[in-house]
């Protein structure tokens, strides 16, 4: 076993066709993505000795994927689940595995195919039923039938507390679409304006349709190896400088003295997220601060998720995310480019693999029309649940000095 040198690195990236891709099961898509990632790295499947599989919607593959790929003598094999934070978690476990010598080449993959040809897109994550059962069924019957309603509550709470406006959220949608126009892989590339955002239908007010992400079929995989090995492989390594997770466990109840909440806290659900802790841990590990980060790929299931993540990472103050977004900082030519591939709002919805894949593309300088020159330190986020779970990865084309 060779001594690990420097940080772990992403040596390979594999992406299937993404979007309205029909006729392939999630397992097949996952296998295709792993094969693509391994080939991209200049490796063969026989070189892979670790496989981490992300959970997805029903039908996403589990560890049986190893058999589908004919992988033998694996030293690491698991399915991970931290909802939208899973991709970051997979990268961190893969990095720890190669740094400790537990494995030497770990493939990490997400695959899903919730879209069906004849079904409206919204139906993939929305449930209607003729009857509703039990207390939770009653809650669904009253209108809580998809995550949209819960994110709408969180967004409205931020608006009421800090004066955040729908137009400010629209600035995130518009900036993201400007990036998507420069990405041939993006599902939605036609330019939009704030006015288009304002006139798009309500999903659940205060969320317009253009505040909400796409739904996509497809798969994305990466291969993680040690730094020295990555340098001998086919592609420019993307070094993994740091990682973190944050799961604040906001309790859905009253806090404060005499209340059942712990530590005297007022319930801040919807207003602050695990990005606070996750970001601090990852940045400390990487030896950087927000000042050093020149590019972010942020999990954008909704425009609001981007806004609250920017605040919680410390790129602006709490409550200032709306003004920050409206300043034009996030789009092409802005001071802090965000979601340069078009994110999940405009490009493709592969959960945490959407921001991770774009970070690797940018770190390699493969962004084409959308390439950001200042790609030295890239922050990647993942968010799951209703702002309950968060992961961060900090990547760079450079080994750490």
């Amino acid at each position: 076993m060779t001594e690990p040198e420097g940080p772990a690195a992403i040596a390979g990236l594999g992406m299937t066709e993404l979007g309205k891709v029909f006729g392939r099961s999630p397992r097949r898509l996952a296998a295709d993505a792993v094969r693509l990632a391994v080939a991209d790295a200049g490796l063969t499947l026989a070189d892979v000795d670790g496989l981490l599989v992300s959970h997805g919607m029903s039908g996403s593959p589990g560890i049986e994927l190893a058999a589908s790929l004919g992988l033998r003598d694996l030293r690491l094999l698991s399915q991970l689940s931290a909802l939208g934070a899973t991709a970051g978690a997979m990268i961190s476990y893969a990095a720890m595995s190669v740094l400790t010598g537990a494995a030497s080449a770990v493939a990490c993959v997400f695959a899903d195919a919730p879209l069906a040809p004849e079904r409206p897109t919204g139906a993939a994550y929305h449930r209607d039923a003729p009857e509703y059962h039990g207390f939770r069924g009653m809650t669904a019957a009253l209108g809580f039938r998809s995550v949209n309603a819960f994110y709408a509550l969180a967004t409205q709470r931020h608006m009421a507390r800090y004066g955040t406006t729908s137009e400010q959220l629209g600035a995130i949608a518009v900036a993201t679409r400007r990036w998507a126009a420069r990405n041939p892989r993006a599902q939605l590339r036609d330019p939009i304006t704030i006015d288009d955002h304002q006139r798009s239908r309500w999903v659940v007010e205060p969320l317009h349709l253009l505040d909400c992400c796409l739904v996509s079929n497809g798969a994305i995989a990466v291969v993680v190896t040690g730094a020295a090995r990555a340098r001998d492989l086919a592609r420019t390594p993307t070094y993994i400088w740091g990682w973190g997770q944050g799961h604040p466990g906001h309790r859905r109840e009253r806090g404060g003295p005499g209340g059942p909440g712990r530590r005297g806290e007022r319930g801040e659900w919807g207003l602050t997220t695990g990005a606070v802790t996750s970001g601090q841990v990852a940045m400390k590990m990487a030896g950087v601060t927000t000042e050093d980060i020149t590019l972010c790929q942020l999990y954008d299931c909704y425009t609001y998720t981007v806004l609250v993540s920017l605040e919680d990472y410390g790129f602006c103050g709490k409550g200032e995310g709306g003004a920050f977004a409206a300043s034009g900082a996030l789009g092409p030519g802005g001071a802090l480019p965000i979601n340069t591939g078009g994110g999940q709002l405009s490009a493709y919805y592969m959960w945490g693999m959407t921001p991770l894949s774009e970070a690797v593309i940018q770190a390699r300088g493969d962004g084409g029309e959308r390439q950001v020159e200042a790609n030295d330190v890239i922050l990647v986020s993942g968010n799951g649940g209703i702002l309950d779970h968060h992961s961060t990865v900090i990547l760079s084309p450079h080994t750490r000095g």
Partner: protein
Amino acid sequence: MEIGVVRRDGRGEAFFDGAAAGRLVIKRCGDCASWYAPDATECPGCGGELGWAAASGRATLISWAISHARPRQDGPVPTTTVPTTTVLALVELSEGPWLHSRLAEVDRADLREGLPLRAHFEHPDEGESYLVFHPESSVLTDHFSGDRPGEEPRP
């Protein structure tokens, strides 16, 4: 107010018995006396067993969201889809737990964090009685009763 038919599932009997009688019945820890939502299964505080207890029905508003009718161009509208403009709400019971519910008889201009609310039960012809919240005191002007057609998005 049409919401679809609610049936019991064998786990929330005391809640639905209470709802039928117009009383809010929620969970309470037998060991540490902390209150929880009706779907809680154990006490995160002390690990104790939860039983059922009558709550006051008083609550305050934490946040809200407005559900609009789904437009027809997005596909066929099932009969159970929320058909109208309704106010979804996250409320804090005076006993502490937060519940996801719906507001009725509320003036949109009055919506704010901390708005005092009171539990109210609807008794449909078919299915179980269900819980919504009304403002504690309100002089109604332009209220959402929950059965008006969806409104156009505001600019």
